[in-house]
């Protein structure tokens, strides 16, 4: 009897296992030579400007590459990375994915899960701006950069400044002194949104560190040799944010504001300044009225007292772009490269330039572009760049510094406390200290 029961259970197990073993068939070359690729794309699908721009480029790719079928899933900001990390843990890497050249997607690239694209791009090196194809984290070329990204721009409404009888401040002290006059008119001095936390870190903190300490100090602090995040260089950078919050210079409810609130306030002329990345030009081109564009200037943060770093600097990274899974070979790898080259090469670079990007691929100089795009190109070309914090420190550390900076803004922590908390985490955990 036992044998019968045992046999029945074994049979049942076998049937169940066979049923589950089928799984989802792997996408592969279909009939007619069409190659299907899974892609995890980075795009804000609710953005009324950026989503249609992306779709427009995708439409052109599909029309010109009918042999490649892209099965696309979208992500944006932190949820993009959260899901990608799950994919990495589950060993289910998409064929094509959006990558960063630095530690931001180090959880994937440092593990060798992306293909080194150096052999693919060979012969095209001179077609990109200098440094764009430099080795990325862990030495490979995991993605072909779409653009050189300046993460810090002080967008300035010169019309409002003129109405207030003000000019762009040369020093931070001057900027602080402007705040009461701006507030008295019911305007926001500096529009920013920081609900997600990354905006303050990515769009302001890096630029401030570049002023207070410069790259030389930052390199020392990353390694923990002759520099720590409790040094005055870092504390002073945080103090600037603390001063801005204390003087009501930042958007009201900044730590509750979703990404997009600040650009809306700025476009509606409710804010004199807005701090965001260079990529925000893309949205501004679509949302501000044509007559407003001449009144928008792109500046960097004013000078700080006693700064040791580069005056007039921003924080920048060699841009993000698409890469492919290390497991791809043959027809799938060729098809994946078609997309990567379409996106970072001459075709989509020209399309994106028309929409407000400043591509890393060198394009013939154009004067017929939107005035804001021309201003961005000029800004990128003339502004020296320091580090973006999350590109040189571990992503885990951002989960420490970002909420701590929110508390700094809310006044529940001082700059010294935030610095001490961050240094403690970096010393114990960051890969740069090991």
């Amino acid at each position: 009897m036992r044998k019968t029961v045992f046999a029945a259970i074994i049979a049942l197990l076998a049937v169940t296992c066979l049923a589950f073993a089928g799984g989802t068939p792997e996408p592969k070359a279909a009939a007619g030579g069409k190659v299907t690729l899974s892609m995890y794309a980075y795009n804000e699908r609710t953005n009324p400007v950026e989503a249609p721009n992306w779709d427009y480029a995708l439409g052109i790719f599909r029309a010109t590459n009918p042999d490649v079928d892209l099965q696309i899933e979208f992500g944006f900001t932190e949820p993009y990375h959260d899901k990608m990390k799950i994919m990495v843990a589950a060993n289910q890497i998409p064929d094509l994915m959006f990558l960063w050249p630095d530690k931001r997607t180090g959880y994937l690239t440092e593990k060798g899960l992306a293909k080194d694209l150096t052999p693919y791009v060979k012969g095209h090196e001179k077609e990109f701006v200098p440094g764009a194809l430099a080795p990325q984290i862990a030495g490979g070329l995991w993605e072909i950069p779409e653009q050189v990204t300046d993460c810090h721009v002080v967008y300035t409404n010169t019309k409002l400044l003129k109405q207030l009888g003000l000019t762009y401040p040369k020093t931070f002290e001057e900027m602080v002194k402007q705040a009461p006059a701006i507030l008295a008119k019911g305007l926001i001095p500096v529009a920013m949104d920081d609900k997600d936390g990354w905006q303050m870190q990515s769009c302001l903190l890096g630029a401030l560190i570049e002023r207070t300490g410069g790259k030389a100090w930052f390199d020392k602090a990353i390694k923990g040799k002759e520099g720590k995040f409790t040094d005055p260089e870092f504390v002073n950078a945080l103090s600037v944010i603390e001063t801005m919050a204390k003087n009501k210079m930042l958007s009201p409810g900044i730590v509750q504001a979703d990404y997009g609130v600040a650009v809306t306030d700025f476009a509606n002329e409710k804010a004199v300044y807005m701090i965001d990345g260079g990529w925000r030009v893309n949205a501004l081109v679509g949302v501000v009225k044509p007559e407003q564009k001449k009144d928008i200037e792109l500046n960097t943060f004013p000078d700080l007292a006693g700064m040791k770093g580069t005056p007039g600097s921003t924080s920048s990274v060699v841009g993000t772009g698409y890469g492919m899974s290390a497991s791809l070979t043959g027809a799938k790898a060729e098809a994946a490269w078609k997309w990567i080259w379409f996106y970072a090469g001459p075709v989509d670079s020209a399309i994106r330039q028309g929409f407000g990007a400043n591509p890393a691929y060198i394009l013939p100089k154009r004067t017929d572009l939107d005035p804001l795009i021309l201003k961005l190109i000029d800004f990128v070309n003339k502004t020296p760049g320091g580090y973006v914090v999350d590109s040189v420190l571990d992503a885990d550390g951002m989960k420490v510094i970002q909420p701590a900076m929110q508390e700094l803004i809310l006044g529940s922590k001082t700059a010294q406390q935030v610095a001490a908390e961050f240094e403690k985490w970096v010393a114990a955990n960051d890969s740069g200290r090991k």
Partner: protein
Amino acid sequence: MTEKNLKRVSYAVLTGPALLIYAFIIVFPILYSLYLGFSDWNGYGPIVPTGFQNYLKMFQDPVFLHGLRNNMLVVAVSVFGQIPLGFVLAYILYRKLVKGAKFFETMIFLPITISSVVVAILWSNIFGPAGAVTAILRLIRHDPRMVFTVFENRTWAIFPILFVILLIYTGLYMVIFLANLQKISPSVIEAAVIDGASEGQVLGRVILPAMLGVLFTTIVFAISGSLKSFDLIYAMTGGGPAHYTEVIAIYMYVKTFSGSHFGFGSAVSVFIVVLSLGMIGVVQAVFGRLEARYEG
């Protein structure tokens, strides 16, 4: 094959698939989480045992402790807010103490039919600095910088979320109670009324004892649901600002998937299971006594 053996084979064949599925999707993940909770596995590479380090670290982390405090408030609102309110509403409708019972039934149940993420975004916009209510208040008070500062206070930030939780899920409990109230024979209530029982006596001596089973079930739902509450809070605030509205499920998610600390995240998930079972055990003991009292 004897009839007895045939029965055994039948039981094995009929219950086998369900047992296997249960083992695969419930038992195995819990046991595996228990195992991972004693390691520092980061989702890749070998699993290195670290003993109780994750548990010690968890209880030393002020973010976790604040999340646990927020979770206890969610449990409190569910057990002492949603359930009594749901019961009272169901009782009012059942006893027809208000006109238009069907209308109220639909209106109260409606929020639960909407995706919690949609509800979260809606309320986030209402409370948010760019929300309609904020804009109206700014107009009324002539203050362009006015915002709801309750979210910026570590102690009180969770309270607007508790309000939304109360508003959404009360309807579910109301429907459960109403369905069970309708099972009580009207003749029993009529007999009590004829015997001179007041409305309070009908409720306390006839209806509540008959509802003990379903009350227990709803409390179990409320506790387990509260401890794993994630979607609504995550979509509404993401646990922020500065972890003020974080609950342990969000803490677990962030540690596990944003930080790739699968070992640590597993330890937190094991804690959620243990806490959930512990609290349900306490409720079971309390209801056991209550049942004995009523039966006695």
